[in-house]
Each structure stands twice: as structure tokens, then as C-alpha cells.
């Protein structure tokens, strides 16, 4: 019959057909708006089952378009891009590699391992390839920015938020170049692009790297309340915001800042650890009951009674969680460090070393002897600190400095000295610390 129609009639028939067919297509496939229950049947189903692109995070239109354009060839395209990425990495074509990383992510915007791996690659591997510290910092930032982008597009995945926090906190704060990196985080070395101080993309408010990391860890915890994470034990994962505050306070001390800012930081760290992390609820299965780490006898009794479980079982679960997160140690550490006199001990030892560097051996020796006595007292009050590597290293280093002064003055050091007990007990640690000490101040004669 269609053959009997004229060309024009056929065209009109096709047009009518197209319009008629569009009706069910629109009804089924109309995209959703911001309002609930908007869009066609498919969009509503996606919303109901949390499968829509918009429910996963910020939508990148380019990404969706690319996937459509490839018509099911995405896997092949990704493979080719990953091969290209490897070649560019081998050939040290970093700028091109960064661009290819973006292309990979356009095709795999919700593949979490890709975000984690490529973010790590930029922040850790590529940065290490550069010689100038400023360049290394640039690539650490690139890694962090990449992960931030990943977190924005994958709000269901706490892992990417956590990874961003780790890059901003531990990579910047614990790398060999940490002193430079931490300064750069507040005042970016690229003054032309960031004349106001920090790179606003990673640090809009110009804060300390550990505090920015704390915010990202907190976001990770918020996301984790809605969506499960798969990288570590839950108690450990949720401890990171508080751990970041501890790191912040410790870093201030390492940089020689012993004023009220540091004390307040430790005070906040203590509160975060005990009142924040310590009061978090963790669920135990089979039998089901809920625990928190800052629990005393009466709390354990109450939990056992509420959930009708054996008290010993509750006790054991809390103990296990505390051990995994090293809960008691950090509580003691934060409690000790927030005291003004503890801070004074650290300040005295730090200042003694500064005096030593200036060549004022007498004042340095005096400050060391006073500081070491107070240090000994601090360890008596908080024996748990004797387990902390940093604390022990600080004490042993101070003793070495004290011995060095005697050596430089050609005097014989007294038999008895503060921290002698610690010196003898921790003899196994001494060779390593002595090596670092000798590298900085020259070997003992």
C-alpha cells in the first residue's frame, strides 16, 4: 500500500509515525529534574533504585556523551587509553599523562579503583619523579585535586573522600619534604597563579593541611553512614578525623610551636578522640549488640543488659576495637600533651637544641638537664607514652645531644643522668637514632 502513495504522502506518513512513536519514548525516557518523582518511567525507576547518574554525584555531561558516542566500545577505548597512559608514564610525558588520566575518568567515572589508583599515581609516583620540591608539591596537589573531583562525582563512595584526606594529610604532612609541603599548602610557591597564598582549589580557607584532611575524613565518615566502605575495619576508618587532629597537634610541635595554639590543638584532639570517636557506636553481629570505645564498667554492664548478651563478650569486643585503633594510647597521649607543663617539657628540649645549633653549649646543657628531668617525670605520670616511637625518639635524641655537649667540651659525662633508665631499656633503638644524629651533628669521637 505504501508504494501507492506519492513521495510527499510517504514523507508525511513517516513524520506522523515518528511523532506517534515519540509519545511512548517521551513517557518512558523523559529525563528527571531536581524534583522528586519527576521524569519518565525509566527516570523514576532509576530514582527509586538509586541508579541515576545524578544520584551518584555531580554529573559530567561530557562523560555521559562520550559513553554514548562509543556505542558499547567503552571497554576497548579504556584499554587503549590505559596503554597510552603507561607509555606516557614510561616516557615521562607528565602533562599528556594528566590529560589521558582525565580521558580515562570520562569513560569510567564511577569505577572507584580507577580514581584511587590514578589519584595515588599522580600524588605519589609522578611527584617523586620531579627534582624541584615545588614541582613535587604541584603533582601532590594534582593527585589531591583529582581525588576531590572523584569524590564529587561519587558521593556514594566514602573511600574516595578518605583517599583525598590521606593525600592532603599524610602525603603532605609526612613526606620527606613535609616542612616545605606544609608551608606551600598555606602559601603556594606558584605566586603568579595564587597571589593570595594557598591554591584555593585544595585549600580555600588557607588552613593547615591536617585540618583540611580532617574535614575530608569527616566527609568520608558522613558518606560511610549511608554507604559501606570496603577498605578497612570500620572502627579504624572512622577514627581518621580525630587522628588528623592528633597529627595536626603533633606537627605543630615538630615545627617548634609550643604556644597556646598547640595546647588548644591537643585539647581539641583529646575531645575529638574521647568525646567524638570514643562515643561512636559500632555494631557487633551474632549476637547483635552495640558498643562504643570510651566505655567503663557501668557502660559495659548496661550494654550487656540492654542487648541481653554476655558481659564478657561485650568487654572483649570493646577491647578488640580499642586495640585495633590504639585507642588507649592516643587518649593518654592527647591527655598528656594538652597539659601546659608537658608542652613546656617539649619546648625546653626544642629550645635546647636551637641553642646547641647556635653554639651556646652552656645554656643548651642547662636547658637539656632541666628538660630531661621534666621529661622523666612526664613518663612517670604517663607510662603509656613510653610506647610511642616519637616520644621515645625525642627523649633519646635529647640524651644524645646532652652527651655531645660533654664530648665537645672535652668533659666526662656523669654516670647518672636523667632518662638513664630509658636509655638502657631502649638500647635497641639507639643505633638507628644515633645514625641520624651523627649525620646531622657529626660522629662521636
Amino acid at each position, binding site marked *: 500500500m505504501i508504494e501507492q502513495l506519492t513521495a510527499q504522502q510517504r514523507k508525511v506518513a513517516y513524520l506522523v509515525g515518528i511523532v506517534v512513536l515519540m509519545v511512548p519514548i517521551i513517557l518512558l525516557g523523559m529525563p528527571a529534574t531536581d524534583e522528586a518523582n519527576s521524569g519518565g518511567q525509566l527516570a523514576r525507576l532509576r530514582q527509586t533504585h538509586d541508579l541515576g547518574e545524578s544520584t551518584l554525584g555531580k554529573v559530567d555531561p*561530557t562523560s555521559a556523551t562520550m559513553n554514548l558516542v562509543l556505542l558499547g566500545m567503552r571497554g576497548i577505548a579504556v584499554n587503549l587509553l590505559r596503554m597510552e597512559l603507561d607509555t606516557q608514564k*614510561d*616516557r*615521562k610525558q*607528565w*602533562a599528556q599523562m594528566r590529560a589521558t588520566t582525565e580521558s580515562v575518568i570520562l569513560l569510567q567515572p564511577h569505577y572507584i579503583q580507577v580514581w584511587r589508583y590514578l589519584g595515588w599515581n599522580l600524588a605519589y609516583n609522578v611527584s617523586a619523579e*620531579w*627534582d*624541584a*620540591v615545588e*614541582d613535587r608539591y604541584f603533582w601532590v596537589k594534582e593527585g589531591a585535586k583529582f581525588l576531590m573531583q572523584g569524590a564529587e562525582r561519587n558521593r556514594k563512595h566514602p573511600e574516595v573522600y578518605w583517599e583525598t584526606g590521606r593525600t592532603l594529610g599524610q602525603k603532605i604532612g609526612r613526606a*620527606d*619534604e613535609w*616542612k*616545605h609541603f606544609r608551608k606551600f599548602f598555606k602559601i603556594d610557591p606558584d605566586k603568579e*597563579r595564587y597571589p593570595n597564598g594557598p591554591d584555593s582549589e585544595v585549600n580555600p580557607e588557607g588552613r593547615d593541611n591536617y585540618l583540611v584532611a580532617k574535614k575530608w575524613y569527616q566527609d568520608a565518615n558522613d558518606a560511610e553512614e549511608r554507604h559501606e566502605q570496603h577498605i578497612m575495619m570500620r572502627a579504624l576508618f572512622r577514627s581518621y578525623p580525630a587522628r588528623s587532629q592528633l597529627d595536626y597537634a603533633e606537627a605543630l610541635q615538630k615545627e617548634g610551636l609550643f604556644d597556646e595554639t598547640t595546647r588548644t590543638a591537643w585539647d581539641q584532639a583529646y575531645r575529638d578522640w574521647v568525646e567524638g570517636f570514643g562515643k561512636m557506636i559500632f555494631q557487633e553481629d551474632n549476637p547483635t549488640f552495640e558498643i562504643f570505645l570510651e566505655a567503663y564498667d557501668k557502660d559495659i554492664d548496661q550494654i550487656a543488659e540492654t542487648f541481653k548478651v554476655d558481659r564478657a563478650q561485650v568487654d572483649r569486643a570493646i577491647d578488640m576495637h580499642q586495640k585495633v585503633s590504639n585507642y588507649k594510647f592516643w587518649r593518654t597521649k592527647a591527655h598528656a600533651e594538652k597539659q601546659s607543663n608537658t608542652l613546656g617539657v617539649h619546648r625546653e628540649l626544642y629550645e635546647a637544641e636551637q641553642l646547641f645549633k647556635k653554639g651556646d653549649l652552656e645554656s643548651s646543657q642547662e636547658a637539656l638537664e632541666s628538660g630531661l628531668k621534666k621529661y622523666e617525670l612526664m613518663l612517670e605520670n604517663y607510662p603509656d607514652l613510653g610506647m610511642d616511637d616519637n616520644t621515645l625518639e625525642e627523649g633519646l635524641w635529647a640524651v644524645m645531644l646532652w652527651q655531645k655537649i660533654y664530648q665537645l667540651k672535652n668533659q666526662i659525662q656523669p654516670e647518672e643522668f636523667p632518662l638513664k633508665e630509658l636509655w638502657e631499656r631502649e638500647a635497641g633503638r639507639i643505633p638507628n637514632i644515633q645514625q641520624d644524629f651523627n649525620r646531622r651533628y657529626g660522629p662521636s669521637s
Partner: protein
Amino acid sequence: MTFDRAPFLFGPALLHWMFVFGSFAGIIFSVTVLIALGVYGASGPTAVMGRVWQGLHDFLGISPRRIWALALLTIKEAVRRKALFVFVVFAALVMFAGWFLESDLRADLQVKNAVSFALTTISWLTLPVVLLLSCWGLPEDIRLRSIHTIVTKPVRRNEIVMGRILGFSVVASLIVSLMGVVGYVWIRRQVPNNAELICRVPVYGELGFLDREGNPTDKGVNTGDIWEFRSYIEGGTKSSAIYKFPIDQVANKIRFESRFEAFRTHKGRIGQSLLVRYVLLNPTKSLRVPLESFEVVEFGLNEKDLDRQVTYFDEEKKTNRTLDLFDDIVDQNKLTIEVQCLDSGQYLGMARPDMFIRMPDRPFVAGYFKAVVGVLLLSIFLITIGVTSSTFVKGPVSILLTFTVLIVGQGFREFMLKLITGEQKGGGPIESWYRLITHMNDTLALPDNFGVKLMQFIDNLFMGGLWLMQHLIPDLSYFVMSPYVANGFDVPWSTALAQCFAMTAGYLVPCLLVGYYSLTLRELEAK
């Protein structure tokens, strides 16, 4: 891109081309004569000779007027087929591209992105258009029988092929030139005010090495890089890199640019880059002129200006000396520079193109339009292949064939070479398939039996075909000149443009012959 290509030598290239072309022509002629002899007896070879004679006659008697008339028809046809609509797509891309190019990047990276975008867009828009036009033209004429209106006129078949190639080339030239001009204006407007559009003219030298004992060696140390492009010298030893630059003119100042790579075996001083020193050498006079050391800028450019009068501290005489660069230091028209790393236990990596003398810059427009010429030459090359293939196969097959040449020529030659040389493990197609389904790793030896021998025999036949393809399909990456311009370099004649002109011309001649004989022998009545 390393810009480390060997200069193109016309003489040897022409000889090589003549040898290959002659061999192919000879083989085809001999095979044709033998077949004709077998099929038609003694009259066969005579007929073949007649065809050859006819071909010679047709090629010697070509009429530029008729070719131009056919070219004009081709241009009209291209316009009718809305080829120029490509400008609409280009205009849309150029209008909105600025939205998608990152504007918070470093100024030089913004320039790089803008230049790459403009040239890549011109290339990606032009090539599909010319590919479709050139491959569809003749088959469509044959299908619609409109070819009869031409072949019944006093027009030779080679003139049809030439007219087609010329016509499409004119269309391509028009498209590429207009896009080139618009692209140039767009780049000018796109780059930030603090960015500079530069076109460096580098002069590269030869590179040699001295080992840690000071003995000459071909290469430095490999510090674990997979890519062995750069060699490393050890700091704080006698190890050094020796660059020898040709000097053919005297100047008041010479500018050196280098981009070295640092490798640390220990942390060293954090916050300080490795120290590098240049020492000017005159081997004949046993003269060593150490220059002031500097901290290396890695993956960036270290710029060093050298005045004609060089003052340095003479260690032996313990006094300052001033020498004339060209009279005292340049030796036999060569300037020799030793590069040393001064940090003990650290390494400095370099390759031949990592250091060069920067001649006075050319205007950016010169380099840019050379790259545009590269796109045009590639278009003409594709048109030649497309028109030729369309004389013996139908449109879709011709498109597939030309597209394959483009893809393989641009990106798969290296892979093919690895397959042919055996560097790529896993064997030929049958062996790969066998290993895949039996989960056999490519490092495991195959069993010694008849089946495996047969499989390898068939694979060798495939590899033979691949070898032929590898030699037939040229390296089309030469035509892509945007990396030069995007990185702020001029497009060199000897290592880029000359190669492309020669390649286009080299393929044009045999393609005309193939096209002519295919069209002559083809049944033009559409089936």
C-alpha cells in the same frame, strides 16, 4: 614528541624509491606477460606490450586543459555534495571551544592546548571529508552511469584519475587554507595576554658520553628507565655528556636551551635542585673553559646566553682570562660543550635533542602555516589513495581501505614492526588464538608436533603479508606537525616537511599508474 628525527636526504631517497618502484613494476609486468602467454598464447605478450605502449602514449599526451576541466567538474560535484558544510561544524567548534579549554592553566600550557586544538580540529574535520569524497566519487559516477558522459568524450583514463585527484586537492586546499586562517585568528584571540606565541629554530648537535673514569662511551648509565631515550651521567665523577654543535656563522651572542632530567640516589638537599655546569672545550688547543654552574630546571628549559667574549677563571694560571668564542673556542666549525653534574651520588639524564642552540626565532605564523601545510599534504595523500582505490573497488570498500591506510600509517606501524621482528611475543594470528584458548603464556614453548609446525607455517604466510603491508603503508605520523608548533618550535624542512612532500609525490606516481590501468581495464557498466 622528541623532535629527534633523522634529516631527509633526497638523493638516497630517490634512488630507493626508483629501486622499489622499478622492482614492483618489473614484477607486475613479468607476471602479466606470463599469464597472458599462458591464457592467450603468443599473442598475449604482444597485447600486454600494446597496453604498455598505449599507457605510455596516454601519459605523454596528457592535456592540462582537459585535466583542469575534469578538476572543475570534481570541485562542482564536491560543492553539490555539501562538502563545504564542514565549515559550519568548524565554526561551531571554534565558537565554543574556549568554554572547554582550561583557562586556569599555566600560560605556556594554554598556548599548547590552543594550538593543538586548532590544528587537530582542522585535521579531524578535513580528513573524513576528503576521504569520503575521494572514495565515493568514481564509484558513484559508475553506479549512476554518469561516467559514460565523460568516457565517451576524447578524454584519457589517466586524465580522469588526475582530474579527480586535482579537483579534490583543490577542495581540500580551500578547506584547509580557510580553516588555517580562522584557526590562526582564533589562537591569537584565545591565548592569554601574558603568553607568547613563539617559534624557536633549534640547531641540534651530536652527543657523546664519558664514563666515570673519563673514557669515551656511546651511552651513559641507565637509572632504571624502561624508555632508554635518555642516558645519565654520574655526578661528582669524570662522567659527562659531550655535545658538538655545528657553527656556520659568527654572532655576538649564542643562546643555549636544554632540558635535562635529574635522578637522585639520595635525598640530597631538599629544596635545592642538582647543580649542572657547562665546560666549553677546544680539543685541538686542549682548552677547557668552565662556565658558571646553575641549578637544573627539570622537564623545563634551562636557558643560557653565551657572549662572544667569554671570561672564566683559569684554574692553572689562577687568573681570569677572556677568550673569543669563535676565534679561540670553536674548533673546525664545531662548538664542543661538556655537561657535568656536580652533585656527588646524583645523576643527570640527557638525550641528543635535550640541548640545542636557539637561532633567532621565526614568526609564529610561519611555523603554524607549515603545520597547516602538513594537514594539506596528508589530505592530498589520502585523496590519491582514495581515488586510486575507487578505480578498482566500490565506494564502501575503498573507504575501508583508505581508512585502514590512515589508521595503520598513523598509529600501528610500530606495533606491526614488533610483530614482524618477533619482538612482540605470542606469535602470529593462529598461534595467538591457540595460546588464548589453551591459556598458554606467551613465554612457554609450544609442543613439537605436526600441528604446531603447520600453524607456524600459516602464521609465517600471514607475517609475510604483514611485512608487505609494513613496507607499503608509509609512516603518516610525519604529517602531524602540530607538536612542533604547540611546543613552540618551528617545523623543520629537512626532518618534517621535505619528508611529507616526498612521500606525497612518491605515492602519487604509482597510484596514477594503478588508477589508470584499473579504470582502463574495468567494466564501467554498473552492476
